[in-house]
């Protein structure tokens, strides 16, 4: 294998991703986990760049980094997380470790057992992305927007205060 700059950079980015992931699942403090998630998201955006999809990298940064993590931090704030600083792993974490390792093994064996040809990587132009999205996949696109609408309405209803329900 040729050691080239892209490989090294890829490893760095993947260390970010994996490290962020590990941080999410192993951190003692819940706020630390939230911010590790942010790190992992940024890493993922980097990985997207290595997959020649710049648009999606930006979308990832915007949505995950800009919206999702913010929402989570808001939620942490609203649930008064400072009272719950000692919430860590629950009782079944050894079993969880085993199962995840098993899953890892299964997936890896499946991966290396099935030969997939891969070619030289090339990106997908934004034009093709747009065309496919709005012609072949227009209906799922509409439905996705509908899902967002439902989620929005549902969230509002769910977090409404109770005194509006009891006259």
């Amino acid at each position, binding site marked *: 294998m040729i050691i080239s700059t892209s490989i090294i950079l890829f490893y760095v980015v993947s260390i970010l991703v994996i490290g962020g992931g590990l941080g999410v699942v192993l951190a003692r403090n819940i706020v630390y986990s939230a911010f590790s998630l942010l790190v992992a998201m940024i890493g993922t955006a980097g990985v997207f760049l290595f997959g020649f999809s710049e648009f999606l990298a930006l979308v990832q940064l915007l949505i995950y980094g800009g919206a999702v993590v913010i929402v989570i931090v808001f939620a942490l704030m609203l649930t008064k997380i400072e009272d719950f600083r000692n919430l860590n792993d629950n009782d*079944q974490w050894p*079993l*969880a470790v085993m*199962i995840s390792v098993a899953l890892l093994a*299964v997936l890896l064996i*499946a991966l290396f057992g099935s030969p997939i040809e891969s070619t030289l990587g090339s990106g997908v132009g934004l034009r093709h992305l747009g065309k496919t999205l709005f012609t072949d996949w227009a209906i799922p696109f509409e439905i996705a927007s509908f899902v967002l609408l439902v989620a929005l309405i549902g969230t509002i209803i769910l977090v409404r205060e109770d005194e509006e329900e009891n006259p």
Partner: protein
Amino acid sequence: MQLSTDITTFIWLIPLCCFVAFGLSIVGRYFTEKIHFICVVAVFSACFLSFLVLYQFILSDMSVVTISIDWIAIGSFTITWGILVDSLSVIMIGFVTFVSLLVQIYSLGYMLNDPRISWFFSVISLFTAAMLVLVLSDNLIFMYFAWEVVGLGSYLLIGFYYDSEAASRAAKKAFITTRIGDVGLLIGIMLIFKSTGTFNISSIIDLAQNGAVSESIMTCSSLLIFFGAMGKSAQFPLHVWLPDAMEGPTPASALIHAATMVAAGVYLVARMHPFFDLAPLALPVVFAVGLTTFLVGGSIALVMTDIKRALAYSTMSHLGLMMLSLGAGPWVVAILHLVVHGLSKSLLFLCAGNVMHSTGNRTDCWSLGGLRKNMKITASAFTIGALSLAGIIPLAGFFTKEEILISLTEIQGLWPIILMIVLAGVFVSALYITRLTLITFYGEPRSDNAARSQESPWIMTIPLIILSALIVIFGLILIPLPFVDGYRGLGHFIDPKYKVHFVPWLSFISILVAFLGLLLGWLFYGNNALSHTKMVGRVAPLYDLIIRKYKIDELYQWVIDHAILAFGRLIALFDRVILNDALVNGSGKSVVLSSLRMKWLQTGRFYNYGMAMVIGVVLSAAVWWLA
């Protein structure tokens, strides 16, 4: 006189009349009380027809006639109902209908005041019909069917006085004991069917004589069939029901347990005799069982004080004699003895009925005595019957006993010893019947009832007279008559292969033995020259054993208690523990228990469910991708 009609057209009428009488009297007794007369009319017509058939049979040169109707067809196999008319069945139907007729005439008087007289006559008609079907049937299945109905009739009649505990127990005992035999009979029939493919008796005998049946099957099935005959004919050890069967009305005992039902076993063995002949073990077993029964029955009859029971044991003993003659040689002599014994024994039973009728149902012979003074006809009839049974010339019993003894001499090998044993039995039989006669009828009355006895009405004594007369002259039919053309004795009529013998030295010895028995009886009981109580005292332990009927009843009760009821308890335990507790309750309980255990899976905690999901995914993935 030649009749224009063929026998075959009306032979089936003979059992049918009796059966129709049964049906009519069952229904009719709700309408009129005199319905039982129909039964008498029916059996009279049956008797008349039987003699007509006999006559026709003689005239048409004794050909064998069979008719058969297909009854059930299952695939390629049909069960037929058929009638076999040959010399044996003709004699049997004549005998059965005749005795039944006499008993029914007698019962008109005996059961006159009984409110359930119609039921009695119905059952007697049913019984007669079944017995006729049994002797006329040409295949084993129909014979078995009739066999069972005969057993049913016996059960109903023994338990006639059903409010008596002893009677119902006796009826049950009879039915169960004969049923045990019947199981063997059925298995034997099925075994024969399996190896010959037919139930028809003639075909079976033909096939067996042509070697189509293997020897082991022949032996097995013969022994099993004989087991059935043992049950019905009260052979040792299935004899225990016969004495207890005396709980029934005396005419019933006269018909069933002297003449007809117990004869069914003998008839069956006689019918299947060619088959039994071919099986190596069968006839010796028959002989041994018959001999044992003969001796056991005789010895117990010697000590019995109840008239009816003494007569029952005497019947058992003579049935043993018939069986042993079947085992020894020609079956004809057994049939002859069956007819003669049937006549004599029913005569004796009817006389006993007279005694009971006039002394207020007393049967204990020690409380009777001197009845000769008041009941002359009964006493003479009883004496004639007794002498015939003892084998005194020139009564009929002598001739048949002769024939049996002669056939015994033709056994190779041990015949002197066997002859001596049988002669000992003959001696005992003469002794006990003399004893009974003397104690009951002769001497001085021993109780008020005996003193005040009187002769029964004519309707009850006429059958006695007829029977006594018949016994006297029947002997003449048995031997070849010089003045009738071509007649060589009743035995020859039944089976042309049989010749009547006459062995002078044997006749001399048997007459001597019989007279010795008579003499000894008279010395003990008539003259009181020898004291029987002292004799009893000398053989006290043996006497004890015999009077307890060799403790067979106790043995059976012990077996039932310990083996059968224990087995029953085991089965009940199995049923309770395994079926009820384990399977039925247990399946319910196991569901509850498993659900209690599985409850722990529902922790209500989200991460446990998540774990379950992931485990499922991992397993599915592993199976899907890796296997």
